[in-house]
């Protein structure tokens, strides 16, 4: 059995996000009005050989901490299922 985990890694609040800024500009240039802040991050979807969602979550969090996110500049969020 496997469980799917999704790790979302975003720049921390206050950390400059040049990519988000550029996307915001580009959307405005395309004529989309009313676009406020834009932040760009990564998402990593994993299949884990686990049956217990709580365990899967703990494992994914450890992965995020150790590899997927650099917690100096990024925060992460783990979703299961």
């Amino acid at each position: 059995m496997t469980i799917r985990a999704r790790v979302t890694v975003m720049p921390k609040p206050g950390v400059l996000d040049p990519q988000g800024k550029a996307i915001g500009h580009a959307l405005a240039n395309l004529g989309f009005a009313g676009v406020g802040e834009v932040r760009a991050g990564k998402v990593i979807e994993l299949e884990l050989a686990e049956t217990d969602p709580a365990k899967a979550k703990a494992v994914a969090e450890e992965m995020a901490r150790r590899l997927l996110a650099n917690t100096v500049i990024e925060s992460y969020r783990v979703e299961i299922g």
Partner: protein
Amino acid sequence: MAIALERAAGRPPAMLFHRETELPRGTDLVVLAGGFSYGDYLRCGAIAAHSPIMRAVREFAARGGHVLGVCNGFQILCEAQMLPGALLRNASLRFLSMDCHLRVERAGTPFTGRWQKGAVFRSVMAHGDGNYFADAATLDRLEGEGLVAFRYCDARGEATAEANLNGSARNIAGILSPNLRVLGLMPHPEDYVDPLMGGTDGLPLFESLVDALAAAPA
């Protein structure tokens, strides 16, 4: 790029700003040069493909104008859907800055007139996202219609897996539009147009263009 164009054509090209909306009168060739437009944020070439000047470029191509996109320019042409497919991250996930060899797959076009089919020349590549991708049907169509312009190969002209440095589908380095007037390619032929730069292997592309454009005024 401007240097290569001036060398081949004998006069300097006009430079356009991305916010301009019209091409200069009498334009016979539009070149989208390399260069991390908009920082290549989001996807390489994606934001530039929507810049104001691109509408004019698209119309120019639709009227049968000649368009050359190199590196970032190729990415922009794909993102603008002026050429099919997309350029993914290099398979190695690393920026690759090195010499490569290209084999001419389609001679007799405005860009390849000075080469024979099968000719092999050296070029420079310098990109992080040059891994050409298209679905199998599109690839088959490109091959069937002879729209693959260049393939990555080794020095002897073999299109091997090792020579396919960025992992492109079927070693494809450059493709043409159906009317053969739009070319996109990842490597930089403009970097070898002077012995001082290490060779003149890329010069035929620009000389071919001069031949073609002199023969067929815009």
